[in-house]
C-alpha cells in the first residue's frame, strides 16, 4: 500500500491541504489504488505547500505546491511510485533547503505522523524522559544547565537556571507552564512544532515536571492558532491513552497531566507574568518582578514557564546529553536556532541552523531574495518589537550578543523581509500603534508613550517641525525603553529607533516633497 503524506500544518491548510487530501483520497478510490494518507507536519519548505510526499524505496519524493486540479495528472504520472511530474522536487531529504539545515528541535517535524505515539517512539521519542527517570531530577537540571540552552521565547534566559530555582523551592504544589502565545509577526516555529511534533513538547514538559517536582502542566496557546488547538488536544489524548501522561507514568511513580488553555487575542499575554494572570482568569496585566514566577508563579506557586521551542528541545538534550547540544553554535549562543523566514521572500519557511550564520546569507541565498523581485531594503528580526536591519548590516551573524551589540535582537527568530517599496516611517508608526493597541495599561511609559508615539510620528510624516519632533520621538523612545515594566513597552522603541537610525530619509519625505 502506497503511503502518501499531506500536511495538516495550518500553513498547508491555508493553501488548500485539506481539500487536496480529500481529492487524493477520492481519486485513489476511483482508480482502485490502495493508499494510506498520513497527515504530517510541514517540512518547513512553506513555499511548496501543500507538499505531497510519497514513500519510495529511494526515500520520500515530494510534489508541490500541489492543487486539487493537479491530482489527476499526479496519478497519471505515477506519483505513487515517485514518477516524474512538473511539481516533483525529487527526494525531499536531498533538497538543498533541507540539506543545508541542522535539524535538532525539528528533526521529526514533517517526517512522522504527529499523532502516532508508536511512530514518535520509533523516532527516539521518550528516550529523553526514560533517561531522566534513570538519572534522577537533580541530574536532569544539571544536564539542562550544562547544555547552555537559552529560552527561545525571545529573552534568551538560561533555561537550566530557571529550572534550578523552581527545583530548589520547598516541595509542594508547583507548575510547568508552556508559553505558546507566539504573537510575533514573522514567527511560526511554535505553531509548526505543535502541529508537526506535539509529543516532543509533551515529553519536554514531562521531563521538566519530573526535574522540578511539578505534576501539572499548562500550555497557553493563542487563539489565532485553531489548527494547533485541535492537533495538540488530540496529542494529549493519545499520550494519555498510551500511558505517557497520568498517574505513575510507565511505573516511574511520577504523575503528570497536561492541560491546553486558549488565549483570547491579547499580544501582551506572551509576556510571562501577563500569561500567568490570564491563566488564572484575570485581565492579562503584567506583574512587577520580583517576585519571579519561579518563586511566585501560577496561583502563587513556584512555576517554570518556558517557550514551546525551549521545552521541545529538552527531550533531545536529555537523550543525547548536554555536550552534544552545547557543541553547536557560537559564543554564548549554544545549539541551533529555528529561523522563520517570512514576509516578502521567494522561499519562506522554517530553517533550523547552528547559531552564527550571517543574516545576509539567510535573506539572499536561503530565502532567495524578495517574492516581488525588487531589491531588499530592510529585514525586521525578532517580531514587532525587533529592530529593522538594513542591508548594510547583512554580515551580522545570527547570535544573541552580536545582534544586541547593534541595538537589535533575535527574539524568537522570525525574519520579515521588506522590499524597497516599504515606507519606514509608516512601519515605525505601525510599531507604536501596535503597542498602543496591545498595551496592558499597567505602566505609563507603555500606555501613554505608545499613543504619543503615534501622534508624534504623524506630525513628522505631515512635515510639522520635523527636527524637533524627531528629537521628541527619540526622547519618548528612551523613556519607554527604560521606564516600561515589560518587554512590550520596553522593546516597542526598537523598530522605531532602528527605522530612524537606518532610514532617516523616510522621515523627511514630506519636507522633500514640499521643497520640490
Amino acid at each position, binding site marked *: 500500500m502506497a503511503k502518501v503524506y499531506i500536511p495538516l500544518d*495550518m*500553513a498547508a*491548510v*491555508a*493553501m488548500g491541504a485539506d481539500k487536496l487530501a480529500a481529492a487524493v483520497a477520492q481519486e485513489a478510490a476511483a482508480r482502485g489504488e490502495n493508499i494510506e494518507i498520513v497527515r504530517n507536519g510541514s517540512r518547513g519548505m*512553506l*513555499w511548496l*505547500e501543500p507538499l505531497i510526499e510519497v514513500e519510495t524505496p529511494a526515500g520520500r519524493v515530494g510534489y508541490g505546491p500541489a492543487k486539487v486540479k493537479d491530482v489527476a495528472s499526479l496519478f497519471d504520472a505515477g506519483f505513487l511510485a515517485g514518477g516524474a511530474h512538473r511539481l516533483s522536487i525529487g527526494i525531499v531529504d536531498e533538497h538543498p533547503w533541507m540539506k543545508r539545515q541542522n535539524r535538532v528541535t525539528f528533526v521529526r517535524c514533517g517526517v512522522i505522523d504527529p499523532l502516532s505515539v508508536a511512530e514518535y517512539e520509533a523516532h527516539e521519542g521518550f528516550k529523553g524522559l526514560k533517561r531522566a527517570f534513570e538519572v534522577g531530577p537533580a541530574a536532569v537540571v544539571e544536564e539542562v544547565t550544562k547544555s547552555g540552552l537559552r529560552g527561545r521565547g525571545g529573552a534568551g534566559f538560561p533555561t537550566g537556571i530557571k529550572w534550578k530555582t523552581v527545583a530548589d523551592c520547598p516541595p509542594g504544589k508547583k507548575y510547568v507552564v508552556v508559553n505558546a502565545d*507566539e*504573537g*510575533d*509577526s*514573522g*514567527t*511560526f516555529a511554535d*505553531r509548526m512544532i505543535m502541529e508537526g511534533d506535539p509529543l516532543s513538547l509533551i515529553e519536554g514538559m514531562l521531563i521538566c515536571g519530573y526535574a522540578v517536582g511539578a505534576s501539572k502542566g499548562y500550555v497557553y496557546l493563542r*487563539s*489565532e*492558532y*485553531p*489548527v494547533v488547538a485541535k492537533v495538540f488536544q488530540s496529542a494529549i489524548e493519545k499520550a494519555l491513552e498510551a500511558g505517557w501522561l497520568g498517574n505513575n507514568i510507565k511505573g516511574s511513580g511520577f504523575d503528570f497531566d497536561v*492541560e491546553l*488553555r*486558549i*488565549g*483570547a*487575542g*491579547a*499580544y501582551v499575554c506572551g509576556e510571562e507574568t501577563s500569561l500567568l494572570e*490570564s*491563566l*488564572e*482568569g*484575570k*485581565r*492579562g*496585566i503584567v506583574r512587577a518582578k520580583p517576585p519571579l514566577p519561579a518563586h511566585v508563579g501560577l*496561583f502563587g506557586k513556584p512555576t517554570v514557564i518556558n517557550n514551546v521551542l525551549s521545552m521541545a528541545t529538552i527531550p533531545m538534550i536529555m537523550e543525547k546529553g548536554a555536550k552534544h547540544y552545547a557543541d553547536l553554535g557560537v559564543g554564548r549562543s549554544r545549539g541551533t536556532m529555528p529561523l522563520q*523566514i*517570512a*514576509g*516578502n*521572500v521567494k522561499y*519562506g*519557511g522554517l530553517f533550523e541552523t547552528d547559531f552564527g550564520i550571517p543574516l545576509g546569507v539567510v535573506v539572499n541565498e536561503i530565502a532567495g531574495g524578495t*517574492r*516581488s523581485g525588487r531589491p531588499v531594503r530592510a529585514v*525586521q528580526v525578532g517580531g*514587532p518589537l525587533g529592530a529593522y536591519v538594513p542591508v548594510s548590516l547583512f554580515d551580522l551573524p545570527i547570535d544573541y550578543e552580536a545582534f544586541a551589540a547593534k541595538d537589535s535582537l533575535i527574539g524568537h527568530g*522570525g525574519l*520579515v*523581509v521588506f*522590499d524597497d517599496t*516599504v515606507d519606514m516611517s509608516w*512601519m515605525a508608526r*505601525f510599531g507604536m500603534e*501596535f503597542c498602543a*493597541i*496591545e498595551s*496592558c495599561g499597567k505602566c505609563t511609559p507603555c500606555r501613554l508613550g505608545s499613543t504619543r508615539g503615534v501622534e508624534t510620528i504623524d506630525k513628522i510624516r505631515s512635515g510639522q517641525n520635523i527636527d524637533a519632533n524627531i528629537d521628541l520621538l527619540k526622547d519618548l523612545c528612551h523613556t519607554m525603553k527604560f521606564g516600561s515594566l515589560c518587554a512590550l513597552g520596553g522593546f516597542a522603541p526598537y523598530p522605531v529607533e532602528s527605522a530612524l537610525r537606518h532610514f532617516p530619509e523616510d522621515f523627511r519625505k514630506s519636507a522633500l516633497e514640499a521643497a520640490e
Partner: protein
Amino acid sequence: MAGAAQYSDERAREIIAAHMGLEGPAMPILHALQEEFGYVPDAAVKQMAEALNISRAEMHGVVTFYHDFRRAPHGRHTLKLCRAESCQSMGAERQARAFLDKLKLDWGGTTPDGALTVEPIYCLGLCAHSPSALYDGEPIGCVDAERLDEIAAEARD
C-alpha cells in the same frame, strides 16, 4: 456567527457549572459562552461573577481586556485580516483598506445586512504566505483582492 444559540440564563448557568472544576476557569468559560451564543452577553457576565465570587466590575474588566470576546452579536460570518508586519510587507494594509472602503466599513464593522464582520488580526503565523486571513475559523494564505470579493459574496448567500 452562524448557528449561535439564543441566550438563556439557564444555558449560561450550565456552561459555567461545567467548567467550575478547572483551576482558573474564567477564560474557558468565556470561550464556551461565546461559542454557544456568538458573543458574551452581559447577563452571562453577571452569572459568571456570581459563580466565581468576584465583583461584576472585575468580571467586566476581564471580558473587555481581551480582543476576542465580543459584547454584542456580530455578523453571521467573520473575516479576520492580518495587519501585522509580515502581511504588510506584501501589501496587506493597502489591500485591506481598499476592501473595507468597497464595503463602506471600518475595522470591526459589520455589513448592513448583518452578513459579514471584518476584523483586524495581528499574525496568524502564516507569514510565508502573506497576506493571510481567517474566515469563520478557516485559514487562508496569499489572499488577494479577488479572493476577498469572493468571500464577501459568499457571506451574503
